[in-house]
């Protein structure tokens, strides 16, 4: 396991990995899982997770990438079943903590076969609304209003290294910025029929 993950003690509790039959206990169990996922993603700035639970962790020093499956605890040799994992995704989606890449609702069916291994979700440890507010705040704070700013600048400029949204994937940023457009605070600009920049007013 990588050095960057700080997992709570309950992560070593074998029943965490079995879908509990008692419904109110299961709700707590799912809540526990969501906390584990959000806390870790936030701490390690992990923006995406695969449908199976794989997360890519980048060592800040060496830039080395480790893949870690949150739903498989190798130490105690326990895994969550795909059916239970889906239940967790569904709850996270309902609570706005998970976003499909295209911004559409997930089609999570326990009966759908052939999990596409490349299927990835965005993990929202802050809600889309909250992100939108933070970015709006940044525009105002850095006096970027009425200027065209590229998506790339927002999430990848070294000036923004200490901003909470630094390193955010651009498609996720796009979903967040759409909220500003909807609020009438911004317009987006295309290049080669793809949105690449924004002007906040």
């Amino acid at each position: 396991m990588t050095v960057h993950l700080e997992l709570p003690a309950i992560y070593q509790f074998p029943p965490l990995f079995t879908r509990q039959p008692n419904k109110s206990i299961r709700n707590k169990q799912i809540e526990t899982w969501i906390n584990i996922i959000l806390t870790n993603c936030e701490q390690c700035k992990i923006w995406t997770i695969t449908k199976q639970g794989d997360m890519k962790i980048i060592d800040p020093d060496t830039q080395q990438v480790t893949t870690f499956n949150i739903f498989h605890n190798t130490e105690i040799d326990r895994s969550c079943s795909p059916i239970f994992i889906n239940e967790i995704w569904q709850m996270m989606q309902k609570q706005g903590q998970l976003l499909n890449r295209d911004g559409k609702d997930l089609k999570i069916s326990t009966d759908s076969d052939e999990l596409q291994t490349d299927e990835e979700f965005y993990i929202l440890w802050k809600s889309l609304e909250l992100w939108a507010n933070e970015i709006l705040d940044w525009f105002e704070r850095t006096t970027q209003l009425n200027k065209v700013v590229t998506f790339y600048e927002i999430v990848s400029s070294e000036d923004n290294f200490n901003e909470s949204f630094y390193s955010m994937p651009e498609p996720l940023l796009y979903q967040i910025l759409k909220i500003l457009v909807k609020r009438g605070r911004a317009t987006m600009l295309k290049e080669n029929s793809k949105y690449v920049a924004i002007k906040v007013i």
Partner: protein
Amino acid sequence: MKKFGVAAFEDDERVYNETLKQFDKQTEQLTEQLGIFQEKLVEFANRHNEEIKSNPEFRSKFLHMCNTIGIDPLNLYVGRDKHLFTVNDFIYELSIKIIQICRNTKDLNGGLISFDELLNTYFKTLNITEGDLVEAIDLVSTLDGGFEILKIKGTKILRSVPNELTNDQTKILEVCSIMGYASVSLLRVNLKWSKVRCKSVLDEMVTSGILWIDSQTHQKEMLFWDPAWIAKSLSN
């Protein structure tokens, strides 16, 4: 080996061993004599059915003796119309036997036993019909102990544990009733289930002791066998 009245002889191991040995010897001879005696008693019971029935005192003593020397009471019934006590004693006795069989085989079959197995393995010599079984099980089910008759592809199964089968589990048992086993690929082809669903229901049935795994197939795929196959293979 079980000890007989150990305490009395503890101080004198030799006496104890002497006795034990003597006992073993006698046991062997007795077993032989007992066999003959048992046969005679059953014969006697059948021949003097009416007399035994009409004298409660005698009947009570007679049946106690039979029980003490280990005669299966079901052997004392020549037929449903000839019985040593009330009309229903036969069916009560059968109910008790069924309860005992279910408890003894639970670890082998997870609490599911087919009528075929009951009739062909346990009641083979006793001339018991499927109707008798149904009647006896109906009686047992008034005790609310989780006993229930299921039907898998037209075959009757007795479930003696309170965990009800899910629809998915029942479908898997249907597949097993044909081949003896199920596997992920068999289920995918026949039931059009996803891999995930197949695997999770099969695993669940192993956990609850209903299916046994077989990892030595040539297809390199795990097979999940229904132990009901064992009795079935006997009758084929």
